[in-house]
């Protein structure tokens, strides 16, 4: 399974134009709300205005009386069908519609099904709910205090608001490292709650046909196959009668992995009414109730020798999980892959203590391009490393270099149990420093300070772990995290490739076609890629956590190679030669030493249906389920230069240089698009994105006036560069890349702003680093103008 390095790449590494863009730029995409079925009804959700309240009564009679209303669904009705609660992807439970209490603002309380979306919406105002407000729990610290209101009183044996306590690493070795340390540097920081905010909100059309008993559910889902299984398990529908179709999806970022109450109620309503039911979530519904991101309170301690060598790392993390533990994360680890917090550094010992707490907020937790909590881990270590460098009087870059895992240490086993596949961190760092002109910038920073200007240079050298996964560690509700590819070669040499993953904008229709092209010599325009329909694609776990190329990409290359083997046998028959005498040149099988005696792949495929060797089955197709032996570990260095306005505290990125190493790049243009998107989101989190709550648990950040995402105006210009260190175990040497920039870049931006103020002792500014926070720091340091 080693990387095929014998031949020069013909189709890998080519920026083939995205096949899917033809329909998107013409406005001919097919998104959920574009789908209209005959006799379709519309559903709207009534949400709780309170963060924590007992439901005394719900009166739906006035809503039911409104002309055009077909049904009003409440938790009580669902409870009769045992559907008032559903399992989360982390094995907890979450309410579909509230029965006893509401536990967050925006929680689903009732649904109206009506002939038009307007009537459904109008009727919501006619539902009367009598609430008894209860004290809201709005922080994990408050949640874990003695006497805090018990949020999950529905759960037997749940006596406090603790969700989990989980430790990782070697406590004894870490204690020893700290005992031997000359110096300990600490940093406490908070990675605030933010939201993936995909352009398209969530939605579904449930069509349970009473005549056939088949449930066809069109759904904005990143993981349609898993959803089908969950529906079979939860609703008790026979799995062969459930068909989940994910049409074109307008962004997911992890937000569209979980099962949301709207999907379940629409399906139940369609089952009960016998007509298709459409639910389209509005922006506020999306921002306040669906999978959020982050909300980790973190503290890191670094044990160092007097020379600056890292001896050990201690981390404590407290997570705000919302009212349900609903992280859509597939590992057996309680805090996802947060224990990758040792990052790019050769840390002999590490110990991590994590606690999760229930609060009166939306559940979710891992969404937003975060690689199952590596975003938080990477942020903490990259911020901590910079602080430590200042404290010991070293340049942050030299401190990183001193402590990097070296190129010859791979495969490298980390103190918390990961085996990093490959890397060359110093090469990526050096390229970033060279491109940004680091040495000159440090000089310029000095001169600027003398002139009264504040310039900061921030660096982050991240390591990612993506591509879940090896099934020994990763599963969703027991389902192993393999992925699949089914390849059919048709008589005229054209291919259909069906995958278990599902693009939400990542360009799968092009990238995966290129893998087939590379392996079989069929040009990408002759490969049609199908995803997102459970009736018509092999079982897979979906697209999130940068896993599609590491898993389904591997499956695609391997099934193509299997078909090539059969094609070779057919070619031998056609050329009247033995298989051993044939060479594959990327497009043709030719007889060794007689290159004129050759058959193109298209000729061979035609023969698979017309002229087969004796005893061989016709056709050329197959399915591969690929369980990768390990995660892949992309890495890189981001370097950012900022200048601060001393009058207002505003800061502005002047340059952003990104060096990414994601192994072999299949389509460099698509990879760069992923990186630019991720850098934009990284900047967004560093600068403005925030969902916060007042003391009553009211969500602030429930629309795009309060929840700020950057426009083209603020988004910095990005300078992209690359190094290539192939993954040794992936069939084409590729690593995942979808989340690298979101994971790695927030720390680079924050590090840059802090660096501008480091000379006056500033060590931390909390995200989002808004101008008022910077002004306060300037003011304290006497630098404000």
């Amino acid at each position, binding site marked *: 399974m080693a990387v095929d390095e014998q031949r020069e790449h013909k189709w890998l590494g080519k920026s083939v134009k995205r096949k899917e863009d033809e329909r998107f730029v013409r406005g001919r995409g097919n998104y959920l709300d574009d789908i209209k079925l005959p006799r379709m009804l519309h559903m709207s959700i009534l949400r709780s205005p309170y963060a924590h309240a007992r439901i005394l009564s719900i009166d739906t009679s006035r809503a039911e009386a409104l002309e055009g209303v077909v049904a009003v669904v409440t938790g009580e009705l669902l409870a009769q069908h045992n559907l008032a609660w559903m399992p989360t992807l982390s094995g907890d439970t979450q309410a579909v519609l509230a029965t006893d209490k509401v536990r967050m603002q925006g929680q689903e309380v009732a649904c109206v099904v009506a002939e038009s979306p307007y009537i459904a919406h109008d009727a919501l105002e006619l539902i009367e709910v009598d609430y008894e407000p209860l004290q809201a729990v709005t922080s994990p610290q408050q949640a874990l205090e003695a006497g805090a209101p018990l949020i999950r009183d529905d759960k037997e044996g749940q006596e406090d608001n603790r969700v989990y306590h989980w430790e990782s690493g070697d406590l004894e070795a870490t204690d020893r490292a700290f005992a031997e340390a000359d110096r300990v540097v600490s940093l406490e920081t908070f990675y605030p709650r933010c939201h993936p905010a995909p352009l398209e909100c969530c939605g579904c059309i449930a069509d349970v046909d009473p005549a056939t008993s088949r449930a066809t559910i069109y759904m904005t889902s990143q993981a349609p196959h898993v959803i089908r299984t969950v529906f079979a398990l939860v609703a008790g529908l026979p799995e062969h009668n459930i068909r989940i179709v994910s049409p074109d999806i307008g962004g997911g970022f992890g937000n569209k992995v979980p099962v949301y109450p709207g999907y379940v109620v629409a399906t139940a309503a369609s089952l009960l009414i016998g007509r298709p039911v459409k639910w389209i979530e509005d922006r506020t519904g999306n921002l306040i109730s669906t999978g959020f991101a982050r909300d980790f309170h973190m503290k890191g301690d670094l044990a160092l020798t007097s020379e600056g060598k890292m001896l050990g790392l201690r981390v404590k993390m407290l997570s705000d999980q919302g009212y349900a533990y609903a992280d859509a994360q597939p590992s057996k680890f309680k805090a996802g892959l947060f224990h990758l917090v040792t990052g790019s550094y050769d840390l002999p010992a590490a110990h991590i203590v994590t606690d999760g707490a229930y609060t009166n907020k939306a559940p979710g937790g891992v969404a937003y391009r975060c690689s199952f909590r590596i975003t938080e881990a990477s942020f903490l270590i990259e911020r901590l490393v910079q602080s430590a460098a200042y404290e010991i009087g070293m340049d942050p870059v030299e401190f990183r270099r001193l402590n990097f895992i070296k190129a010859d240490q791979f495969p490298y086993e980390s103190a918390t149990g990961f085996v990093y596949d490959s890397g060359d961190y110093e090469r990526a760092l050096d390229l970033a420093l060279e491109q940004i002109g680091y040495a000159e910038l440090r000089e310029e920073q000095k001169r600027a300070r003398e002139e009264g200007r504040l310039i900061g240079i921030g660096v982050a050298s991240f390591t990612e772990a993506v591509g879940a996964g090896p099934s020994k560690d990763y599963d969703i509700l027991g389902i192993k995290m393999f992925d699949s590819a089914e390849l059919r070669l048709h008589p005229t040499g054209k291919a259909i490739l069906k995958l278990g993953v599902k693009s939400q904008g990542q360009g799968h229709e092009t990238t995966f076609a290129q893998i087939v092209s590379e392996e079989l010599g069929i040009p990408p325009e002759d490969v049609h890629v199908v995803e997102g329909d459970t009736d018509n694609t092999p079982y897979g776990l979906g697209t999130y956590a940068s896993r599609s190329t590491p898993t389904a990409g591997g499956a695609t290359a391997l099934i193509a190679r299997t078909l090539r083997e059969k094609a070779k046998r057919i070619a031998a028959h056609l050329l009247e030669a033995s298989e051993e005498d044939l060479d594959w040149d990327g497009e043709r099988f030719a007889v060794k030493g007689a290159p004129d005696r050759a058959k193109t792949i298209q000729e061979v495929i035609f023969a698979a249906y017309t002229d087969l060797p004796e005893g061989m089955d016709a056709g050329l197709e197959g399915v591969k389920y690929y369980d990768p032996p390990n995660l892949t570990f992309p890495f890189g260095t981001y370097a950012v230069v900022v200048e601060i306005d001393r*009058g207002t*505290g505003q800061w502005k990125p002047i340059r952003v240089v990104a060096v990414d190493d994601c192994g072999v790049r299949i389509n460099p243009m698509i990879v760069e698009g992923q990186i630019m998107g991720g850098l934009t989101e990284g900047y967004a989190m560093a600068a*403005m994105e925030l969902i*916060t709550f007042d003391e009553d648990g009211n969500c602030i950040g429930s629309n795009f006036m*309060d929840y*700020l995402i*950057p426009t083209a105006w603020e988004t910095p210009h990005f300078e992209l560069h690359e190094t290539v260190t192939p993954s040794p175990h992936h069939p084409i040497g590729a690593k995942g890349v979808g989340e690298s920039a979101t994971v790695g870049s927030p720390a680079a931006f924050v590090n840059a702003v802090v660096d501008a103020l480091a000379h006056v002792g500033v060590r931390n500014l909390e995200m989002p680093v808004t*101008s*008022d926070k910077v*002004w306060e720091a300037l003011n304290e340091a006497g630098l404000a103008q």
Partner: protein
Amino acid sequence: MLGERGEDAKILSGGQSLIPLLKLRFASPAVVVDINRIAGLDTLAEEDGGLRIGALVRTKTCELSELLRDRYPILSQAAAQISDPIIRNLGTVCGSVAHADPQGDWGSALMAAGAEAVARGPGGERTLPLSDFFQGPFTTTLEPTEVVTEIRVPGPGERSGGAYLKLERRVGDFATAAVGVQVSFEAGKIARAGIGLTGVGATNLRATEAEQALVGAELDEEAIQGAAELAAQAADPQSDTRGSAEYKRHVVRVFTERALRASAGKANG
């Protein structure tokens, strides 16, 4: 129509305030009176030494206007900083003024420029100076049956300078704080000064004491700092997610200084 239907009728010009209110179900008028096809309301021109801005003049038109760029830079700069291009394409100057959002930029920029609103109702036409037009958040001296048909801005004189500086968290956001400054000079001294503040009070505010302190003075560093301090005192901001009251007041001071400094070069030029 407004007289007959009262609160049940709303005027639609650019729709950038009304449509969000409808979408959020904060307003549900039975009648929307679309004035977009009334001829003659889109004048943006100088007449009798002053500027006329008709009820259908879009913010985008002001942003692109060479007349405003050359003669009324405060208005040109304000226009370019209002919300985002899509909203500027539709939103109107008069609609923004009549809506009277304390976070609106047009009110304070126009107030600094000494503008007045022309209102027309069943009783005829009257002129309302903007300096006492804003009564509270979304409240003006306009009668329920009156419509703003035009804004008039006095000519800036031969030597004048102006600027509109806005701090926003992101393009499209309302101002954390913004300051509009307009000064006219005669014989090297300040003949008229206007300072309008955005986002730091229950209405667009006019920093009257700061204006008065400037009139008759030379625009030197002492005058600038003194006026900036008075403008900061005139601000009455609230702490919120955009920043503390103290921070916003500070930004008013810094922006007043910067806007005045930018205008100082025009005294003799």
